[in-house]
């Protein structure tokens, strides 16, 4: 009896060992890639930002000199201000549109499917194609669609992207066009979980459309709205591709963002050390935001 027990025990131990072994073997590629592609580069950035690089070789330890160079660059303050402007406009333009569209689509009796299809369509358009489309829409002279339409209203062609004050909001309009569909779908999903009995009770109490919107729908959606806002701030804070393709940072640096500066440091001027120093600065800022995001996400995702 005892021998049998021991044998069983031994077998279960060996199967457990085999189980552990195969488990680790199966997850190994994933762990290796996570280390190589996500974690190691963070360490590299912190490490190399303290050195002067020649090409990709560290040649001299310079302490915080790279950080000093990056921050005291004459364009740095302007770039930070521009980035804040990007975030500001994305909150003004990019936040309300998907939310209200989701609420309205949810109310539709017919055409729900069509509206969802149409509003999500821009999401699948390649990012560079979106930038190009909007660059052409905003084109100066009669070739651009917006100017062509203005012509029929009787207003002469206006400058769009080459207008210093308009360029950032216009880039955000293009980015919103591209991205709001995916946010909308999430709002729509969240709207499905509103307790319908609350509406019924409110109706009986004589609450009108706006009251129901304000006191039932909005409180229910507050969590996800906040979540989307932080997600958007994190995303837009790193905006790079849109200004790169649409304006190249111009006119005269008016649409330069931190992400684009970072890109230029690295792949235009070949100053990898400075690029990493700037990367570390934005990383520290973003990690704070991300922390808040996941705190909220844990709280609201149920």
């Amino acid at each position, binding site marked *: 009896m005892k021998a049998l027990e021991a044998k069983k025990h031994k077998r279960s131990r060996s199967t457990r060992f085999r*189980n*552990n072994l*195969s*488990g*680790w073997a*199966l*997850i190994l*590629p994933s762990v290796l890639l*996570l280390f*190589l*592609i996500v974690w*190691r*580069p963070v360490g*590299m*950035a912190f490490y*190399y930002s303290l050195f002067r690089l020649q090409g*990709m070789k560290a040649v001299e330890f310079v302490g915080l000199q790279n950080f000093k160079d990056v921050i005291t660059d004459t364009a740095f303050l302007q770039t930070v201000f521009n980035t804040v402007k990007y975030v500001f406009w994305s909150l003004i333009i990019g936040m309300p*549109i998907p939310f209200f*569209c989701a609420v*309205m689509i949810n109310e539709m*009796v*017919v*055409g729900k499917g*069509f*509206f*969802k299809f*149409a509003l*999500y*369509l*821009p*999401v*699948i358009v*390649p*990012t*560079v*194609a979106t930038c190009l489309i909007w660059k*052409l829409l905003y084109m100066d*002279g009669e070739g651009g669609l917006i100017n*062509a339409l203005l012509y*029929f209203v009787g207003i002469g062609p206006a400058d769009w992207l080459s207008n210093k004050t308009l360029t950032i909001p216009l880039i955000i309009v293009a980015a919103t066009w591209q991205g709001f*569909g*995916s946010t909308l*779908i*999430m709002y729509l*999903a969240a709207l499905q979980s509103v307790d319908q009995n609350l*509406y019924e009770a409110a*109706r009986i109490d004589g609450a009108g*459309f706006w009251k*129901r*919107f304000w006191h039932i729908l909005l409180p229910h959606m507050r969590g996800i709205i906040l979540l989307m806002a932080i997600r958007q701030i*994190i995303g837009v804070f790193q905006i790079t*591709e849109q200004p790169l*393709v649409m304006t190249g940072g111009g006119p005269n640096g008016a649409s330069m963002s931190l992400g684009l500066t970072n890109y230029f440091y690295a792949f235009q001027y070949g100053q990898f050390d400075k*690029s990493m120093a700037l990367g*570390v600065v*934005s*990383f520290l800022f973003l*990690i704070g*935001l991300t922390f808040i995001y*996941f705190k909220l996400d844990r709280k609201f995702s149920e």
Partner: protein
Amino acid sequence: MKTFSDKTNGLLNFMELKQFRYRIIYGIMMALLIIVSLACLLPILWIVLSGFKTPAEMYSIPPQLLPSGFSLEPVKNIWVKVNFFKYFGNTLMEICGALIFDLVINGLAGYVLSRIRPKGSAVLETIVFGTMLLPSVSMVPLYMTFVNMPILHINLTGSFLPLWMQAGCNAFTIMLFRSFFNGIPMDYLEAARIDGCSNIKIFFKIILPLSKPIIVVETIFCVIYSWKNFMWPYLILGSTERETVSILLYQISSGSMSITMPEIMLVIMFSIIPPGLFYALFSKQIMGGMNMSGIKG
């Protein structure tokens, strides 16, 4: 055909929709949605239509919104001129590899964390979850990694491998798979294990056939994302024989190719049609998948 009397959910119900003032609100909402839909569709439609204009029509005054005729000749010409087929093939290569890496590596990781749970799973989970929290820090260190792989000291730029590796390394996808596998009853796996199935065999014989919904969703995300992907393909494959459609578009936009305005629009159209068809086929699954994945964009 649904009618107002079917409407019981939402801010407005069928009783209220009989009243004039609520009908007005409903009408305004519908009008606004139509405007937004047009804003989404018209730029794409304009690109497609303008592609058929002649350069003279493009800049004519008064502006001409419609082309004077549709001939397939320019479409064929530009297809040959930019050699679009090459870029298309490269993008397909990028997508197929990315898809395999994505499904296999992330899928297995999700399976291990959900169903095998070897010793040390808690540590692994913390690593994966931490990865989701980590914002990106400049593209340079990763670029340096690809130029000079640690230990192996080989340069991977110019090959698809860096892009595939990135696709195989997505903590959000791992979590997506994990939460899906959590829903598969343990009894199935126990039964198979008693019959002497190995973990890998269980994965292919039991888990995979049950995972069709999640595989479909992840495939759609991966294909759309890879087709849109620009920055890394550009850094890794730029000015090589393996340039993708996005890189072609960027070259056109930066003016490094002599090409007329209508031709640009035709190339944009080429770049939209494949994902557009894909979207038309799978839009239902995309909408459903969004709900499934929660926060994954």
